[in-house]
């Protein structure tokens, strides 16, 4: 990587409990996060993503391994001396302070002059569009406004890295979409490195520069959103990020042979063929090439429809096709169709 590195985790292990009952929340995790990057830790609950965030913040100490911020070893440093700030899932705003006092808290604790604290607070209030709320109590704010205060409070001391622990999970869908755009804008405007924890794959795909997909205390894959989606390295990544059809295959010189006997050209190597539902095309049966399949169910989603299919040997597949305009092509249960793959859509992965 030619860019400057903001955060390095070196062979980090975090075990909770002792002896045989110990659980490894993080199992030998190494990652470099570049300066100015929007980096997302994506995974199901219990995968270790929040633990990694808490280790970077300093709320926990690793059992083994090192954490570096801007090249300096901070493994043993308490949180109040690390140049990182956190946006908590619960926001953790101080209920006895006003909005402005909350935002200025970090600067005040650093002992900055009063004038500077006031000026930065005003600037931050404008940045998150809460100018009119400066003297309100936290309890007088809506959930979305509290979210903005939490962001402003964490950004005010100009941290080298901003850590965000599922900050959008308490918001409703509309507001969440709005905040996704807002967060990306803030990150671009401030140029601060963001480390964002989420279990929502769509959130990760839309906002991130790079994503680390985590499972069972390990990083499964690190890459740009497109790379993660189009070239997942294993079954976990393929199934956690987006929907995928998995087909068992055997490798032959001509390509991957399906259980039905059909042979398909596919990149990669391994014994499982993956193809995304939206990369399947359905045509009339018996015309041209394609796998013979029978429609077993149709689910209408508005923007598109999901067609459940069964190949000749009973293997199940799902195709996602654009919603038919009135009178356009639609599918009915029991119908015979020919399934073709978009060129390059099929990939082989290891189990």
């Amino acid at each position, binding site marked *: 990587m030619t860019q400057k590195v903001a955060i390095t985790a070196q062979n980090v292990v975090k075990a909770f409990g002792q002896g045989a009952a110990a659980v490894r929340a993080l199992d030998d995790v190494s990652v470099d996060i570049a300066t100015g990057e929007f980096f997302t830790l994506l995974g199901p609950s219990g995968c270790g993503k929040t633990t990694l965030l808490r280790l970077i913040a300093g709320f926990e100490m690793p059992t083994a391994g090192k954490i570096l911020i801007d090249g300096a070893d901070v493994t043993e440093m308490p949180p109040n001396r690390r140049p990182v*700030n956190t946006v908590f899932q619960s926001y953790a705003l101080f209920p006895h302070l006003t909005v402005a006092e909350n935002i200025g808290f*970090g600067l005040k604790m650093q002992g900055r002059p009063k004038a500077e604290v006031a000026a930065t607070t005003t600037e931050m209030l404008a940045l998150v569009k809460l100018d009119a709320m400066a003297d309100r109590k936290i309890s007088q704010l809506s959930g979305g406004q509290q979210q903005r205060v939490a962001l402003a409070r964490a950004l005010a001391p100009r941290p080298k890295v901003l850590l965000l622990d599922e900050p959008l999970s308490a918001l409703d869908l509309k507001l969440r979409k709005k905040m996704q755009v807002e967060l990306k804008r803030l990150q671009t405007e401030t140029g601060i490195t963001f480390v964002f924890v989420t279990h929502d794959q769509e959130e990760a795909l839309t906002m991130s520069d790079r994503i680390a997909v985590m499972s069972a205390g390990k990083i499964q894959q690190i890459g740009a959103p497109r790379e993660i989606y189009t070239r997942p390295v294993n079954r976990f990544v393929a199934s956690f990020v987006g929907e995928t059809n998995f087909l068992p295959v055997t490798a032959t010189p001509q390509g991957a042979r399906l259980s039905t006997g059909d042979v398909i050209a596919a990149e990669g190597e391994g014994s499982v063929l993956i193809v995304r539902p939206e990369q399947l095309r359905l045509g009339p049966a018996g015309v041209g090439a394609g796998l013979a399949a029978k429609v077993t169910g149709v689910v209408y989603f508005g923007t598109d429809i999901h067609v459940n299919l069964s190949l000749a040997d009973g293997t199940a597949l799902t195709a996602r096709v654009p919603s038919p305009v009135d009178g356009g092509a639609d599918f009915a249960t029991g119908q015979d169709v020919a399934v073709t793959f978009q060129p390059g859509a099929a990939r082989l992965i290891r189990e």
Partner: protein
Amino acid sequence: MAERSFEVSRLPGFATVAIAVFVLLYLPILTLVVFSFNSGPSIAVWQGWSLHWYTDAWNNEAVKGATIRSLIIATAASAVATSVATMAALGTTRRAAFGGQTFIYVVINQPLMVPEIVTAVALLILFGVVKQATGYQGLGYLILAHAAFCTPFAYLPIRARLEGMDLSLETAACDLYANPWQTFRHVTLPLLAPGIAAGAMLAFVISLDDVVITEFVKSGGQDTLPTYMLGQMRRAITPEVNAISTALLGLTVVLLTLFFILTRKKN
């Protein structure tokens, strides 16, 4: 339509029992208050309205001395008890669970469980030894004794408040460059203040009211208001005692009302 759930107030005789209980609880207090305004010297025969027992009590040097002593002891003891209780509450809630935690709870709350008379005798013996050795005869013994049995009363509301406080607030302060002392000073303490005030008030009321331990520990001439009243009872009872009791009752009601306001859960 909705299924009727069990409600104790629907049981037969509920109203009767409730009224009987309230009468038993409050009739004696009411009688006490009424007779404090009696113009005659009897606490049983009504002879008309008067405030002269209040003025008698006010002008009685012994009552004045005992009142001042009571207030000094209660103030000092509740200050000591509240400080100790605050530290104990922080120590038992703001750290990872540790072995022997239950034992610590028992030690802190020991005065609630050990019979008061046992504590009283124990303190009498211990302080006897100390008095012999040091020659000090002052109010310090009473203050220490009161602080000891007031501590659990101060501890309970403070601990309850701490347990209801989100630990992530202190984590957030730490994340925002506050060192442990700043975190305590700017986040924990302001949020804990209502709990501390409530604990202090409860300790104050408990100290003000104590008879048994005080009676055993006090040296000559160290009567508090309750022990003075007890002494009076041994001789002729006059409504002066009623007047003092009524004044104490008034003070207690005010403090306990404040206590409930402070510990009330916010919606």
